């Protein structure tokens, strides 16, 4: 561990950044010491991402006030290239990959290996293979990013930043889309980098991670820096999740998972012989002959590794899967073939996507318009005209219920912080008053306070007689909230556990393809 | 007419510039009907008012081993290279309707001279109106033939403009020959001149139609002399109704048949008889067969257009 007095490599002084109607950063100061891992935490919308964008030149000089000192000298960046030239690399919260390009092309984008005028393909290949291995992802450098899941994309982003060999590396919620194992792998890489002398800023809502890895912590609330261990000489070792939460939220929080015992009700949804074919290779199945029963009054957790096919299962139920789907779906005793999305919503089955930016939101529409998009047909007069008052009321009600932080309902979705965008997608689906709510990584990028709110909402929905299917790569969440857990491996259900039976080892055992003794 | 026996096996290629204007459709129909009558293999290619497309079509006709090429170019000046290529392959060319310039390889020119049409229009205005306020419209600014028409008309108009007898209220080209554009031009010109207009030079019947709509709106129809050309049915109806003053007939039926006859002669190695008339195309004197354009007015319409069989009486006068 570094010495207390290690020199400060980077200092942000009195940074103030204003957006129309929002004071995102209010005189924030931040110090980063050489070779340390510095955690930056705070509620959704606290200003973490904005601070880092000021630092990296996304918000160029002149668009904020305050000073940036790099090794003691003031610097100003007018674009990303400049901050990169000073050895600063950033992994942004919003994934910034080009879908039609290949993994290799994305990895070296803006940072090509050249040989004279041309790109040195062979060197890029070799480097790509190495770095992909290092971040622990098994995809070909020639694969197209559009074909990758969100978790894989996150790893590509990390690999891309590693290739820049920065002196200061900023990671904005890098583990939000990763499962435990991958996260652990990433944390290990971060520790190595820190040992190599790289200074890192680590933004995360997963407080266990923060505590396990950080050398220092700075906490932001409402655009102000509340405390920083660099100033107070407190060591991180003395910190606990509880007092981080206290600083973040402004009040203590006792409990992480407000699980209540539920009473399982009737059969509401069943799948029979459910088979999904690969969208391009029609001879290959992603899920083969799956059967599944869902009951009202229960939270059904689905655990599994990345790429195990959970998202595909959910999208196939919801009618948005891109390949062929066969099998039967039974709702309230009526059985039929796969449904269209429209029909699903009409029957009260809704799906919260794991990819809020590309699949969840129309970013240039307002908060209000996004929130009502799925129920617009119901908010009409005579089934024809949108009742703007009803619409506004509904939007306001759900935004308040989910504590979405926005200056007005007219704000464009693209201007919300990542976590608030996630809440907005959730608001859209709760507004439907669904009977079966399928959540895919619902708390990705959400702060602890808001997570707790979402769990309470899940409980409320269950009490009203709904069913919730929760796909999540966060084991504590699955274990903490589910009444029943099924574990996925390569498109198959490997285990079906009651809340009481489940523990982390068991779930991981099945998720990695383990088979029960005696049956093997 | 050609002889059935000897015209056997002759392949004549025809390349026309467009099918968007009625006169070329008539050319096409006339030639096709006549060739069928003679039992001649006629290869007809029609471009869509596009020189590059026409160049390709000529190449494609040559690839079909035609014996003679009747070429009615979209742009006469741009067609010398087509003639050159064609003659290099041993295919003689008849320059049809428009005079291909700067090449001496043309076997025969047969046409209604576009500048002559313009001259008729200009002379008509100067004769019937004389001094006064004029609106002058030219055809599409991108169309070389439009320039020729306009230049012809200006031979008569320009001197009177210079002498101050004619006051030009507006002088504009009609983009794409579109009647709607002509309508807007005349509307605006009438506004600018506060309706004090005596004559309108409209380059063809279509644009005249647009101009007349503007006149109607101001109650000036019949009071303003307006030209045209092509003897379109719609224009004939207007001349009968007195809303359009004149048009110019280019009787392409004669031309079409004559072209086929000449082509057959050339294919058989003979020289068509032009009674010694020639025309200078910049590269020398070319044998020429010229058919005079005729001015149509209300007075001679029946005789020139209907009695000659160019149009049916019912087409112009209704049932």
């Amino acid at each position, binding site marked *: 561990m570094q010495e207390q007095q290690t020199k400060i490599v980077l200092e942000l002084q009195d940074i103030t950044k204003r957006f129309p109607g929002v004071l995102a950063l209010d005189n924030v100061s931040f110090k980063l010491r050489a070779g340390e891992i510095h955690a930056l935490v705070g509620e959704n919308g606290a200003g973490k991402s904005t601070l880092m964008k000021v630092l990296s030149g996304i918000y160029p000089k002149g668009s904020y006030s305050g000073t940036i000192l790099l090794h003691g000298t003031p610097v100003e960046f007018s674009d990303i290239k400049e901050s990169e030239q000073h050895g600063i690399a950033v992994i942004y919260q919003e994934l910034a990959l080009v879908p039609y390009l290949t993994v290799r092309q994305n990895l070296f984008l803006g940072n090509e290996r050249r040989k004279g005028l041309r790109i040195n393909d062979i060197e890029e290949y070799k480097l790509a293979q190495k770095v992909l291995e290092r971040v622990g992802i098994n995809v070909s450098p020639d694969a197209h990013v559009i074909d990758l899941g969100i978790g894989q994309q996150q790893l590509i982003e990390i690999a891309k930043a590693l290739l820049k060999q920065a002196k200061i590396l900023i990671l904005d919620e890098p583990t939000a889309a990763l499962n435990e194992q991958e996260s652990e792998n990433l944390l290990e890489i971060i520790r190595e980098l820190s040992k190599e002398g790289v200074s890192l800023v680590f933004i995360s809502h997963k407080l266990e991670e923060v505590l396990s890895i950080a050398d220092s912590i700075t906490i932001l609330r409402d655009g102000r820096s509340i405390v920083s261990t660099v100033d107070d000489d407190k060591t991180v070792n003395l910190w606990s999740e509880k007092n981080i939460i206290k600083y973040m939220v402004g009040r203590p929080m006792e409990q992480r998972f407000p699980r209540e015992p539920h009473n399982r009700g009737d059969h509401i949804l069943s799948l029979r012989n459910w088979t999904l074919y690969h969208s391009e290779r029609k001879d290959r199945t992603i899920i083969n002959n799956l059967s599944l029963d869902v009951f009202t009054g229960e939270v059904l957790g689905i655990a599994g590794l990345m790429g195990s096919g959970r998202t595909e299962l959910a999208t196939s139920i919801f009618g948005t899967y891109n390949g062929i789907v066969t099998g039967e779906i039974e709702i309230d005793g009526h059985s039929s073939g796969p449904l269209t999305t429209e029909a699903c919503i009409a029957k009260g089955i809704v799906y919260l996507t794991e990819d809020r930016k*590309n699949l969840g939101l129309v*970013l240039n529409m307002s908060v209000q318009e996004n929130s009502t*998009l799925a129920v617009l*047909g119901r908010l009409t007069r005579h089934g024809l005209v949108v009742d703007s008052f009803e619409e506004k009321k509904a939007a306001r009600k759900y935004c308040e219920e989910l504590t979405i932080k926005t200056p007005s309902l007219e704000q464009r979705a693209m201007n919300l912080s990542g976590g608030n965008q996630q809440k907005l997608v959730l608001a859209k689906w709760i507004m439907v008053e669904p009977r079966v709510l399928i959540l895919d990584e619902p708390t990705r990028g959400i702060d602890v306070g808001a997570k707790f709110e979402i769990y309470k909402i899940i409980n409320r929905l269950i009490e009203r007689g709904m069913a919730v299917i929760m796909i999540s790569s966060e084991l504590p969440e699955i274990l903490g909230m589910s009444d029943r857990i099924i574990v996925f491996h390569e498109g198959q259900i490997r285990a079906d556990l009651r809340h009481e039976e489940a523990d982390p080892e068991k779930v991981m055992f099945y998720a990695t393809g383990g088979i029960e003794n005696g049956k093997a | 007419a050609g002889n059935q026996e000897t015209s056997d096996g002759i392949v004549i290629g025809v390349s026309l510039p467009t099918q968007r204007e009625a006169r070329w459709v008539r050319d096409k129909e006339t030639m096709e009907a006549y060739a069928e009558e003679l039992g001649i293999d006629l290869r007809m290619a029609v471009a869509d008012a596009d020189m590059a497309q026409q160049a390709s079509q000529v190449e494609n006709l040559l690839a079909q081993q035609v014996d003679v090429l009747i070429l009615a170019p979209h742009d006469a000046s741009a067609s010398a290279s087509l003639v050159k290529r064609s003659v290099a392959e041993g295919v003689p060319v008849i320059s049809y309707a428009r005079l291909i310039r700067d090449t001496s390889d043309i076997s025969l020119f047969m046409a209604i001279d576009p500048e002559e049409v313009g001259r008729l229009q200009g002379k008509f205005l100067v004769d019937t109106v004389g001094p006064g306020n004029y609106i002058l419209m*030219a055809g599409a600014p991108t169309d070389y033939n439009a320039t020729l028409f306009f230049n012809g008309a200006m031979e008569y108009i320009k001197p009177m403009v210079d002498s101050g007898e004619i006051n030009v209220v507006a002088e504009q080209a009609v983009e*794409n020959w579109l009647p709607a554009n002509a*309508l807007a031009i005349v509307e605006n010109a009438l506004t600018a001149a506060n309706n004090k207009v005596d004559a309108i030079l409209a380059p063809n019947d279509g644009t005249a139609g647009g101009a007349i709509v503007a006149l109607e709106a101001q109650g000036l129809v019949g009071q303003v002399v307006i030209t045209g050309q092509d003897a379109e049915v719609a224009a004939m*109806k207007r001349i009968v109704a007195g809303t359009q003053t004149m048009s110019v007939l280019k009787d392409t039926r004669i031309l079409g048949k004559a072209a086929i006859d000449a082509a057959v002669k050339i294919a058989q190695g003979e020289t068509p008889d032009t009674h010694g008339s020639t025309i200078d195309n910049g590269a020398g004197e070319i044998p020429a067969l010229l058919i005079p354009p005729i001015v149509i007015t209300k007075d001679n319409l029946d005789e020139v257009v209907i009695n000659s069989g160019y149009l049916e009486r019912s087409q112009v006068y209704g049932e």
Partner: protein
Amino acid sequence: MEKPDSVLLLVREQIERNLKQYMMVLILGGIWLIFTILTGGLFFTARNYTNLLQQTAYTAIAAMGVVLVIVAGHIDLSIGSVVGLAGAVAAYLQVYHGMPTFIAILAALLVGALIGAWQGYWISYRNIPAFIVTLAGMTLFRGILIYITQGQTISPIWDSFSAIGQGYLPKINNACRIHDSTLYLTVVVVFLYNILQVSFYLRKQRNLLITLPGALQFIKQLLVSIAIIFFSGFLILYRGIPYSIILVFFVALLYSFIATKTPFGRYVYAIGGNREAARYSGINIRKVNFSIFVSMGILASLSGVVFTARLSSAAASTGQGFELDVIASAIIGGANPLGGEGTIIGALLGALIMSSINNGMSLMNMSADIQMICKGLVLLIAVWFDLSTKNRK
């Protein structure tokens, strides 16, 4: 939500949200001013104003249709050919088969709807880019048009038909020196506008939504009312309101309504903004896209009817190159060529800007080449001016 700040915020927001339109109005005003000076006042006379409106009508109608197409992220290159074909069908039926105006127009609209359905089918159910489908359509329908007309101009159509493009609302009392019926119409429109605004205002207040302060609301209504009266005053002093402008007015109302007040309209914007998110929200993208093209076909054919009526005839070249004017109008009016943004009123203003430029230069009797050069530059500068004052990213 906070109260004291929020009124100011609302005013600011209202202004900002509508800045695009306001800016366009300012630019239009600037163009008018310049031409008025350059033509020695001729540009801004009742007569030229009426001409200008009539020269705008058919572009405006098609432009309002293409806004939805562009907002949804598509394009339509076949507009010019559809305009020509639909106009020719109507004229053909009337001139050669003596069909009454009403039937002929209905047939033209039907042809437009069928064309729209054809193109919509390929685009939405066969996933072919609209660029290709409508480019093919452009050639295809022009071919059919040439086949039908055989190069002949089809005319004359009946007076009842021409009236749509050339006629005016009749006077009630012919002896009246000003145009009485247009006056009454103006009064009715101003009255209705104010009634609707006030009732909406009160309903907002009843629902406890934030509203403008009463004084500001009053000023806003007053300004709009004065503008309406001023501009229809021109019409009243000349020949009254042309039928084609009444048509434009109705189409504008209907399409503004569709775009902003119906679920369908919202879906169009959602599809253009993020197609996948729209799909994941249960929107039937195919149906919406299909409907957009049917609507486009109908408006293009309506535009063709007005076009034919204006010229009292139909020809093979009608509408050539027209699609570019139409699309340009929509984009000048703020539609984003990549989809997701655009307004009906913007398209209307865009069409008016385009035809003002044409009209002004033609009044100045510029030669065709100089006109083209100026038109290109003015177009560029107008849009630049518009965008730069709004400093979008």
